[in-house]
């Protein structure tokens, strides 16, 4: 085993440990969720795990690895199309964090979900095209803005 592959194994282990710590804290926040509310909280956690992993590289907490970015971006782009399906009307029992205005402004919500879908696909394409790191970063920032743009209006503020 070369030293670079052993450091990769070590980093992967570190990543798994970090992910499981994150998972534990997320489980606490999502405790008691059932049905579609649980399903969409798990879905959002999947998105967060993947954005978090890409973000860690741009923050310099993990080495920049284009192949890993491609994989995470692939998950995001692959998951994006089903986002609105996870918000059937009235599915808002505790501990759901969705604001009721979501269903009052359903068309706008759908438009914002479509923005996320387009931006995550663009990120995946940029990464697959092996663009410069700065371009991949810019595509990631643009995608992140679509996440925040939707949370701004449709999610309860965190305590």
């Amino acid at each position: 085993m070369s030293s670079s592959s052993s450091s990769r194994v070590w980093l992967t282990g570190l990543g798994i440990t970090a992910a499981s710590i994150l998972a534990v804290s997320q489980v606490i926040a999502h405790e008691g969720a059932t049905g579609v509310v649980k399903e969409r909280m798990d879905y959002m956690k999947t998105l967060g795990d993947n954005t978090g992993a890409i973000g860690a590289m741009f923050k310099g907490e993990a080495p920049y690895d284009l192949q890993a970015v491609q994989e995470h971006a692939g998950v995001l782009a692959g998951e994006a199309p089903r986002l609105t399906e996870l918000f059937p009307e009235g599915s808002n029992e505790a501990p759901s964090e969705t604001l009721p205005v979501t269903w009052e402004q359903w068309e706008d919500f759908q438009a914002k979900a479509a923005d996320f879908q387009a931006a995550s696909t663009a990120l995946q394409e940029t990464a697959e095209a092996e663009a410069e790191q700065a371009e991949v970063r810019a595509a990631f920032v643009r995608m992140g803005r679509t996440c925040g743009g939707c949370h701004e209006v449709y999610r309860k503020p965190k305590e």
Partner: protein
Amino acid sequence: MLRAVLIGLGVTALAVLGWLVFWPAPTVTLDTVARGDITVERGDYLVKAGGCISCHSAEEGEPFAGGVALASPFGTFYAPNITPDPATGIGGWRDEDFVRAFRHGVSPDGDFYYPAFPYDFYTGISDTDLLAIKAYLDSLDPIEQQNRPHELVWYAGFRPGLRLWNALYLDAGPAPGDRDRGAYLVENLGHCAACHSPRNRLGGIVEDRRFAGTSNGPGGEAVPNITPHDDGIGDWSAGDIAFFLELGMTPAGDFVGGEMAAVVEDNTGQLSAEDRAAIADYLLGLPARPGP
């Protein structure tokens, strides 16, 4: 004896009332300002750092034409039009009018502003930067849109009473020229503590809880603790904070919502990487406070 005391109290009350109503409002002079640094580009950047657009633009309205409703325990304030329209905006303002508004919270007519306009933070901004902000606002298209009057509880309607508020809470600036960049961005331009701190019954910031968050922020929403305490951002690195300010992502990979999402998009996300790093360093140097 009783009569003498009552007369004394009456005279004192009249004197205070006279001071509140008739004493001239503070003024400013701008003779020594270096004019070379006053550019529209500088002002554009400072307006982003100052977050002006967040309150001075209604959701479906023209940017900077006002209209946002700010609900508070004192009633609802409506942010005014700050485009250069001469009739409904700030088109007719002199430089001195503009600087006085920020430095002392006083309108060109000599009326006191309510601290819903966070002049108690902006007072620290330098004359040069204030005039650059004015240059930028003057460069916008004038929008004719009448200001909506505030809807306040009865006791808040007496504007001269704000002189007392200023005596208690306004530390008139400007900040010293060598102020740390992070402090200038957080404490003055960004006025972060305006939302991220609890306020007392008079609407003053509770100083020993500054930046420790509040369960009753603007619009009654909870606002998080941004001090380096376990209740706040104690486990965030400077890189985490800078990255959050750029695109709203928390260390857990979540993206912030609510008012802060707009702040990231319109304000902190538009700043230079150096300025975001300066904000991060300043926040990490704050006293760690529990709460909210």
